């Protein structure tokens, strides 16, 4: 009990909780994978609980500045036994509390020692307990390729945390983690995914392209070292062969047995001095180079005192994190590039408006677009239209013209979209077609619509108070 408490407390700053992207038949075992993923609960911070997210141990030999588990932080430590954690996962899964296990860990003794223990736990879970649910395993930088490969064979998703958006911050905040150690396993995962023909890539970024080809194979001089914005000349990583293959590990084992749900990573926002443009450029590199499924962002929450980090009173930059996620979606699903988003407009995203609106206002010469003639890609660029409504519009156009009144029913956010489109030649924005005017009307609308996402003064209305309010309003 105590142990679960400690190791959940230590794991909660890991962000990913997704259980999607992998579909598995139970085939006589317990459980299966659900392609779309299922969230089973939402904790008090509003984040979904899909997987049992724990650390295998929080006893750490590293001393990363930002981390709650850093060596010099004085607080309770604990470790699971492999079988203990496997059993707990099974019992939780059986009760439909979770979709599976998200297993991360601090570095106890050495990366390999810890990874061995994690592997032991996951193999017990898969083979002894015949667990067919979802497993997301964190790979600790510096782990040996053989162990990584074996973890990949039992896990659905692997992730190596890049931690910081630039190598400068990484050197400052996590001096024991080297870019080389982070990129080597990333590269190995991508290459093995190519070998098993299961590399899918982020969102719709590479839609229609064949990814599982030799050309995408990351050689030992892979672009990895340049991902964080500066070349690490002292360490070209030339001595890093693609070890999964070199070690004689089973190549091309057929269909998707290795990390079927792909690879992800996460980085911390607001600890170092990076700009939004820098952060997103790093993400874009990760997507283009490693073809990762996702990059997760986590607003830095000051958990430890440190002279080089924001002090403990700083509120986590939740709004910034939110805007970065929005921009990230634009990269993966909407065909935007980072340079487009930041062309002629500073290094940071506009905190008041979402990045697609900001982009549209800067490129107003492309608008208004005629709904009935625009291509699918163009429709996707109109604020307030997403892939579902864009598809519906394309679909209906084959039978009948789309009228303005139809848009709402198709799921378009008309309040936002109306400033940027024409419907059968008519403009419905009712405002001067100028960036400032549109911006102001949108801001007015947003303040009514979105502020509530982050206000903290919400409180539970007591039953008595509720009755009073209803009475006052004449309802009862």
């Amino acid at each position, binding site marked *: 009990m105590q142990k679960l408490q400690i190791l959940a407390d230590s794991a909660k700053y890991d962000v990913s909780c997704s259980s999607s992207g992998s579909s598995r038949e*139970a085939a006589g075992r317990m459980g299966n994978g*659900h392609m779309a993923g299922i969230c089973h609960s939402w904790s*008090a*911070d509003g984040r979904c609980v899909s997987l049992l997210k724990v650390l295998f141990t929080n006893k750490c030999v590293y001393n990363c500045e930002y981390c709650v588990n850093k060596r010099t932080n004085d607080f309770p430590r604990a470790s699971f036994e492999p079988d203990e954690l496997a059993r707990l996962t099974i019992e939780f899964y059986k009760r*439909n509390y979770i979709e599976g296990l998200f297993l991360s860990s601090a570095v106890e003794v050495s990366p390999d020692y810890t990874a061995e223990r994690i592997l032991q736990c996951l193999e017990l879970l898969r083979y002894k307990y015949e667990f067919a649910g979802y497993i997301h395993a964190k790979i600790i930088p510096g782990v040996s390729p053989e162990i990584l490969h074996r973890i990949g064979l039992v896990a659905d998703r692997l992730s190596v945390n890049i931690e910081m958006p630039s190598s400068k911050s990484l050197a400052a905040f996590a001096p024991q983690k080297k870019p080389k150690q982070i990129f080597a396993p990333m590269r190995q995962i991508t290459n093995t995914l190519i070998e098993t023909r299961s590399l899918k890539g982020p969102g719709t970024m590479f839609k229609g392209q064949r990814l599982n080809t030799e050309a995408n194979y990351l050689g030992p001089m892979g672009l990895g070292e340049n991902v964080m914005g500066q070349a690490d000349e002292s360490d070209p990583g030339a001595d890093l062969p693609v070890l999964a293959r070199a070690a004689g590990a089973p190549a091309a084992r057929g269909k998707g047995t290795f990390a079927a749900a792909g690879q992800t990573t996460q980085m911390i926002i607001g600890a170092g001095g990076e700009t939004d443009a820098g952060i997103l450029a790093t993400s874009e590199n990760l997507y283009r180079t490693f073809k990762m499924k996702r990059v997760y962002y986590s607003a830095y929450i000051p958990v430890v005192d440190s002279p080089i980090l924001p002090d403990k009173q700083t509120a986590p930059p939740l709004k910034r994190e939110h805007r970065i996620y929005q921009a990230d979606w634009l990269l993966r699903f909407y065909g935007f590039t980072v340079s487009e988003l930041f062309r002629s407009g500073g290094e940071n995203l506009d905190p008041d408006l979402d990045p697609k609106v900001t982009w549209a206002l800067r490129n107003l010469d492309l608008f208004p677009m005629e709904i009935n003639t625009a291509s699918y890609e163009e429709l996707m660029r109109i604020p307030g239209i997403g892939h579902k409504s864009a598809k519906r519009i394309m679909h209906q156009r084959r*039978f009948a013209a789309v009228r303005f009144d*139809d848009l709402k*029913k198709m799921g378009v956010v008309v309040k936002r979209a109306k400033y940027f489109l024409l419907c059968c030649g008519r403009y419905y924005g009712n405002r001067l077609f100028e960036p400032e005017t549109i911006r102001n009307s949108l801001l007015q609308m947003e303040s009514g619509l979105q502020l509530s996402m982050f206000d903290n003064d919400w409180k539970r209305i007591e039953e008595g108070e509720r009755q009073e309010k209803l009475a006052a309003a004449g309802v009862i």
Partner: protein
Amino acid sequence: MIDYLYDGTFEGLLTCIYHHYYTDKAAGIFPREEYQPSMLHGFMEVETEEDKAARVYEAIEEKISGYALRMVYRAFLSDAPGKETVILKFVVLGFRIGPSIGSLHARPEVYALENLVRKVGNERERMLQFVRFEVMEAAGTSPVAATGAAHDVAAAGAADGELAERHAAQILYAKIEPTCDVLALAAHHFAERFSHDPLIIHDVGRNKAVFAYEGDWYVADFDGTHLPDGTAILQSDDERSYQSLWRTYFDHIAIKERTNPRCQKNHMPVRYWKHLTEVNGLTGPV
């Protein structure tokens, strides 16, 4: 024009649609118990007839589409008042237009039906999310035999003695109160996922339950305490401790600095909390 009253079954509703074409145009279709006689139309109580229902069922599938048929069935499971009339209007339009009705999202008849379908789909999704099983034991007899599942325990036992023994000793039991009647829509998911264990998902409001074992399932009436053959079921010994472990985990996984109860409740509406182990008994957000 006439109002048709039916018995609340899907077949009954289809029979009414049959009468709309062969007896008299329907002004609306209503469940018998809830009907308020209208000043404008007469009404007729429709006897459910299997063969008439089957004809409409097949006609929808052939002349409109299998997709439309599934939509109609899902909409029927909704708890929204007036769903019958929405279905009637959709089917009538469907017979006129044919398969392409599925893409006419903006037609009011289609839009109304799609809304119902979406709500039912959401409710099903919520079931997959919020069903919480308790591990139970049947008093006395083997729970596998007691749930009446078709499969033989001995066959499973031969494959893996130890596992079968461990699994067969317990039943997974969950209580739910969904707004729409989505039990059957969610049954397959759970039956497949937990095929080792006999399981019961009990719709408390409608007094029925899904019984599933080894991938097969059926829906039957259930009172919550006794299995179809009369065996009582009791909570197993370590159930409490796992529940409290889960609660502990749940409380500790939240990040204090990001507390956002509104967001939590948006995703996990309070009406489901009653049967959620992790929040049950907690008075409010931490």
